[in-house]
């Protein structure tokens, strides 16, 4: 009888779920960047801590992410095979140059890629900041535990304490990057006029 009651209850619960869909909870501490559907800001106190990682850059140097602590970092997940990444590459290259005086560091994570193709990409688009190779998506996996990275490109803005303050899921525009960086650096980005 208990089994029966349990089955009926499960059935009823199931019916409710099937008919109404799952109510999704509110995203606490996350706000959309004005005028953007894919960029978000995490308010202070709700910023997830970025996982640390070590890797090899495309030029063969060892890189430890925690050595960036104290700096604002723009972390871009990309691949030379990824069309939207190619589309946003010029924007990122320019923005990196613009924010260099403000001490904002740019770092790439080159996902599911090979060194030859990635270096050719960097040459092609004039990308001067380093990228860490992540052919097995292992670094991506670490970050997926704290932010919902669905694919490339994804751009995270990490504050001076190593917490993720903003994210762009998909092709990042100059405006989105500027808006997030203005919040994180506390400056209205004098270098940018747009």
């Amino acid at each position, binding site marked *: *009888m208990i*089994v*029966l009651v349990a*089955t*009926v209850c*499960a*059935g009823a619960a*199931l*019916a409710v*779920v*099937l*008919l109404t*869909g*799952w109510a999704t909870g509110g995203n606490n501490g996350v706000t959309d960047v004005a005028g953007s559907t894919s960029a978000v800001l995490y308010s202070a106190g709700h910023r997830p801590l970025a996982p640390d990682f070590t890797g090899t850059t495309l030029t063969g140097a060892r890189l430890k992410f925690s050595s960036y602590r104290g700096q604002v970092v723009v972390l871009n*997940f990309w691949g*030379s*095979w*990824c*069309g*939207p990444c*190619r*589309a*946003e590459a010029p924007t990122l290259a320019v923005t990196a140059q613009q924010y260099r005086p403000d001490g904002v560091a740019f770092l790439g994570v080159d*996902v*599911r890629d*090979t*060194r*030859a*193709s990635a270096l*050719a*990409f960097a*040459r*092609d688009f004039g990308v001067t900041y380093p990228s860490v190779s992540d*052919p*097995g*998506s*292992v670094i*991506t*996996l*670490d970050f*997926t*535990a704290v932010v*919902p*990275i*669905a*694919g*490339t490109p*994804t751009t995270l803005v990490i504050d001076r304490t190593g917490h993720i303050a903003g994210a762009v899921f998909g*092709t990042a525009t100059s405006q989105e990057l500027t808006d997030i960086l203005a919040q994180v650096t506390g400056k209205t980005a004098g270098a940018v006029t747009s």
Partner: protein
Amino acid sequence: MTDVRAPEADPFESAAEPDERGTPNRDPASGALGFTDWLVWGWRQLTSMRIALVLLFLLALGSVPGSMLPQEGTDPAGVQQYYTSHPALAPLLNHLGLFNVFAAPWFAAIYLLLFASLVGCVVPRTFRLVGSARTLPPRAPRYLTRLPLSAEYPAALDPARAAEVAATVLAGHGFRLRRPADDGEYWLSAEKGYLREVGNLLFHLALLGVLVSVALGGLFGYKADRLLVQGTTFADTQSALDEWYPGRLVTAADLGPFTMTLNQFDASYITSGEQRGQPSSFDAQVSYTTHPGGPALAGNIAVNRPLSVDGAKVYLIGHGYAPIFKVTDARGQVVYNQPTPFISGASGNFLSQGVVKVPDAQPEQLGFTGVFVPTAVEIGGVLQSAFPAADNPAVSLIAYAGNLGENSGVPQSVYQLNTAGMHQLTADPQLLLPGQSLKLPDGQGTLTFTGYVPWVSLTITHDPGQLPALICGIAALGGLLLSFMVRRRRVFVRARASGPAPAGTDGVPSGVHSTVQIGGLTRTDASGGFEAEFAVLAAELRSAHDQAAANRQPEGE
């Protein structure tokens, strides 16, 4: 054996299928009926076996368009394509939910009605079973010889003692007994086979369980595909999966955080005889971690021998070859150097097609389309593969230069080359053996075919409903078997004094003899065998009576 009516009012008999015990004279069509009567009639119909079967059939029928038409969840590109090729029909089909059958309201309606039908059938059934288990068997009929099975024999015992002996024997066989209140009669009703209803109930409950399990899989399960080249690693995260089909309540965060590296893949083939070229074994040797930073574990995956990681199962579902190309551009820079998976069709000894895209070659982007053959032969001037193993690998490529169309930001398939913005550099396909190079005209660069590695395609599935569905399936089968094999059967015993008591010295009716009548009936005897069981029981009762008589004779004389 035909349906046997017990001679007295009987809960066992009323526990018939809802269909049979429906109220034929209260059909709404027959006359004035109130709203409640309509409701009762509707509920009776819904919970009838006939409607349940119709719903089950509709459920199966409803799944058909799901496998014939492209579905949003699994093949959004196919749906888009259907829209372009059938512009008039597609919106209509979409309106009917045929591009997302399993989420369509009408599908949910069938599913829920079937669920309600089963629940509505099982709940009253349970009460009836409990009721019938608590009700005593009916009184023994007066003349047992009229029952389908009967026996009669004399016993040198008085009727009370004879009934007592019979009760001991039948209780020893697990029968449930009913004996008369002290009314001067000596009889016994015995019933057995309650497991039949239990089996029936188990079957219905298990069917409900199967429905719930399937729903569990659909809500909380997922399926993902990933092509993995030998020597490379992937992580079980959405961005590293080629295809991902989550259940309705699954998010990317539910993926198990494992990583897996394909260390080596071996395939062997039958080399002679009629079966030549047929695969004889596959073995993918992998190492994996169950969570970031975890220890590397070794494992093997073969066809139908999946590896369980993080609650998911990783299946080997295909394999192929990835020729390795190295491309240098006009400036002499290495702009491409990697294995490139080529995809084979169902036949053709792994004659595989693929494309190479070199978006960062200067001055123009380069693209190649071509085939890889593991064992190259030329038949009538056409390159073919004679054997699936890589005995004589070769590629044949056509080179293009121009605009790949990638920089606009539109995602492309890695297996298709859009040549709309490109011009062909080589007139004919160029055949290359490992180590050979193709020099592009006008100093545009060089492509070298440096070798090949195998790849495997893996499917990662997580179905929390799988085990419950299996258990419920087995339980349903067990219940069905029980309800077929076990019979509800009754045995009645009546003892009557068969003559005047001989003049005893002390008036004790020790010399009273009885006539013992035994009758048996079973409601359904589809599997047969009650006749034999009854004969055995009758013989046993008789010998018990004889034994009891023999035991008391000496002290009685």
